[in-house]
């Protein structure tokens, strides 16, 4: 606690001056909290962005082919047009009802069909208000009953509510309907045209930006869907994707590391191998996809091969560079100590570059991840990408987001764990084994520590 005052006097902004561990942790927390906060703000504050209107209540327009149902999004500009079109339609109906021919030449059965639609347009709102169950959207009897309750004022819709205008329309329609049948009866259903409910909606963001809570909920949901028929469960998909990434990466490392080390050690091999490798790496791996399918056929082989091609050539060059960066004086010292050429490679070069090599492979594993999506589209689509592709085409972005975030999390935590493990594997490097001082570990422990501190503060005599 005594350090707090000293910390407060330190400037937050000073060129290349390290922040205190506490401040560094706070900033790491903010670094993750900030994007989440922005996302939440845009999602939950209706005055931020929200360029669309999501329909809670839709209506059918005569002579217009496009049909909107509740849940659809229309642009803010179009929505009033939609409403006034429906109002105008109701005006016209009023005149028509007052005229000689209330049916305007239509058959009774077609009027009944249209009336049923009008009736059912209220269903989504009723379901939202939990008057009806999710599967009752065509339960005409229940819907009819609800119309009655609303018209009589016996019950009111609250969340979301029905507009005054629509309540009036409900009452008017109910007057006509109840005169014929107080309870729903398909045989006695009204054959006089009913007024359409005027569309209602709330400001919303486009479907490609689902709100955080929705992403979380669907995320939890899609992970609990078990494998069924030919469709693997999400866990199986993750496993499959990991197989592709690590398969391609490990293969590239297994072949590439020895080649890279040899290139970095002997100029002979460097001259022989590196120029072509340097050229080859500029050919984008995806351009080989059809070729790979021709060679390795369908299934996983061409996918792993694509990750391999995308990683291997880069890896050889990176490893050979790392090998060349080994301190020359170390090699000279070893020679003056009597190390032979072969001993230099085995006893100095290899152990000398291991920590840097470890870092290189960590970075290259990240590379391998970037090829995953393209690899999984090669041949037969599979894994997480297949899910993203399919759901994305249906614009189910609330399903796509959790998977994208999941890939990010897997990659990020693999890297963090590997960087933690480094300290244990290479205790002689300066970034030694102090897991508890690692920024991510500290961030994960930040909340529990804060709680602990607050508890101990509130009970000063506990000790």
């Amino acid at each position, binding site marked *: 606690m005594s350090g707090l005052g000293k910390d407060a006097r330190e400037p937050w902004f000073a060129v290349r001056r390290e922040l205190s561990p506490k401040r560094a942790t706070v900033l790491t927390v903010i670094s993750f909290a900030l994007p989440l906060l922005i996302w939440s703000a845009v999602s939950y504050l209706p005055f931020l962005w929200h360029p669309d209107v999501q329909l809670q209540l839709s209506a059918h327009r005569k002579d217009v082919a496009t049909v909107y149902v509740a849940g659809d999004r229309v642009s803010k500009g179009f929505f009033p047009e939609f409403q006034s079109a429906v109002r105008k339609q109701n005006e016209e109906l009023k005149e028509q009802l007052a005229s000689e021919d209330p049916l305007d030449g239509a058959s009774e059965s077609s009027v009944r069909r249209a009336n049923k639609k009008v009736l059912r347009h209220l269903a989504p709102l009723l379901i939202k208000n939990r008057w009806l169950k999710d599967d009752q959207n065509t339960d005409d009897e229940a819907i009819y009953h609800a119309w009655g309750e609303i018209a009589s004022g016996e019950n009111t819709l609250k969340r979301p509510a029905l507009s005054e205008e629509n309540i009036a329309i409900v009452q008017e329609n109910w007057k006509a309907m109840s005169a014929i049948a107080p309870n729903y009866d398909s045989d006695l259903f009204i054959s006089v045209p009913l007024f359409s409910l005027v569309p209602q909606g709330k400001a919303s963001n486009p479907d490609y930006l689902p709100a955080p809570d929705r992403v979380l909920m669907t995320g939890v949901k899609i992970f609990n869907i078990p494998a069924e028929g030919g469709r693997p469960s999400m866990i199986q998909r993750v496993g499959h994707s990991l197989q592709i990434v690590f398969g391609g990466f490990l293969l590239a490392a297994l072949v590439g590391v020895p080649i890279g080390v040899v290139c970095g050690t002997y100029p002979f091999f460097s001259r022989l191998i590196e120029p072509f490798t340097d050229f080859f790496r500029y050919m984008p791996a995806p351009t080989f996809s059809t070729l790979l399918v021709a060679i390795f056929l369908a299934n996983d082989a061409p996918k792993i091969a694509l990750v391999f091609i995308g990683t291997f050539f880069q890896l050889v060059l990176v490893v050979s560079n790392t090998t060349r960066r080994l*301190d020359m*004086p*170390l090699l*000279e*010292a*070893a*020679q*003056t*100590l*009597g*190390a*032979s050429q072969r*001993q230099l490679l085995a*006893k*100095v070069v290899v*152990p*000398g570059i*291991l920590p840097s090599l470890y870092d290189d492979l960590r970075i290259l594993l990240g590379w391998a991840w970037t090829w995953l999506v393209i690899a999984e589209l090669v041949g037969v689509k599979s894994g997480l990408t297949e899910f993203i592709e399919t759901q994305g085409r249906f614009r189910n972005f609330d399903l796509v987001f959790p998977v994208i975030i999941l890939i990010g999390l897997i990659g990020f935590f693999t890297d963090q764990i590997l960087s933690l493990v480094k300290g244990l594997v*290479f*205790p*002689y*490097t*300066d970034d030694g084994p102090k897991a508890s001082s690692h920024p991510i570990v500290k961030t994960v422990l930040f909340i529990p520590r804060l709680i602990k501190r607050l508890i101990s503060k509130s009970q000063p005599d506990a000790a």
Partner: protein
Amino acid sequence: MIPPAETIDYHAQSPEVSERFTKLKERPVVLSVDDLTKVFPSRNGDVTALKSVDFEVYRREFMCVIGPSGCGKSTLIRILAGLETETSGAVLLDGNPVAGPGPDRGMVFQSYTLFPWLTVKQNVMFGPKMAGHKEAGVEADARQWIELVGLSQFENSYPHQLSGGMKQRVAIARALANRPRILLMDEPFGALDAQTRAQMQSYLLQIWRNLDITILFITHDLDEAIYLADRILVLKANPGEVDEILEVPVPRPRNLDQFIEPEFIATKHHINQLIHPESERHQDNLPFPRMTPLGDDVE
């Protein structure tokens, strides 16, 4: 009262000192450098780094090489270690020509060259293990070398846990573990602070005296050279030629108090004259106008 340095003849050796040098030159020659020349080819014509360098190092001698920067000191020791090849001339170790680096010439570098992935003990064991000696014997031996440089309690530490001076002590132990015929040291204390350097110099003298080893030591520090050496080889720059090989008249055993003794000062003065001729030194006199940068009144 110390007489002015110019008036003392550094050649004037006391009888014991001159007897010591007579004896020294009766010993067998360990390292013999014969008409050594090194030319580096470059785009703007060849650069001669060393020209006809000729000298001998006797058994158990402590020889220092000193010279202005760019005189080829480092090139010389790298050729002796076998890390560079000479353009012409020969290097003989116990009469046999040297080809490439080998454990018979131990080397301590200015930069820290301990293997970071090995502990202190493993570093010291490196040379003998490369030679194929048995692990058990090598380990016991390494312990003794580490004890000799006073780092027993650090034998399982990694280099990054050691201070600069400790690292160089391990480097010395590591080079000695191979039992080399000569220990080559390339400004080994150049990166250390003044206190540590003085301490390391005394350590080195103790080790040298107790083990009777032969040392060739490169430095650009006159005090260091005079304090340590039996003889000092002064190199001239452009091209690197032997200017003089002088016998240090300061009696042994040496201690830091000798830095102000007449022989010491006279030797230093003499080398200074060789390295920085009178004419060159006067060019350094800058005009120095009177200024009052602090704005206060100057009396």
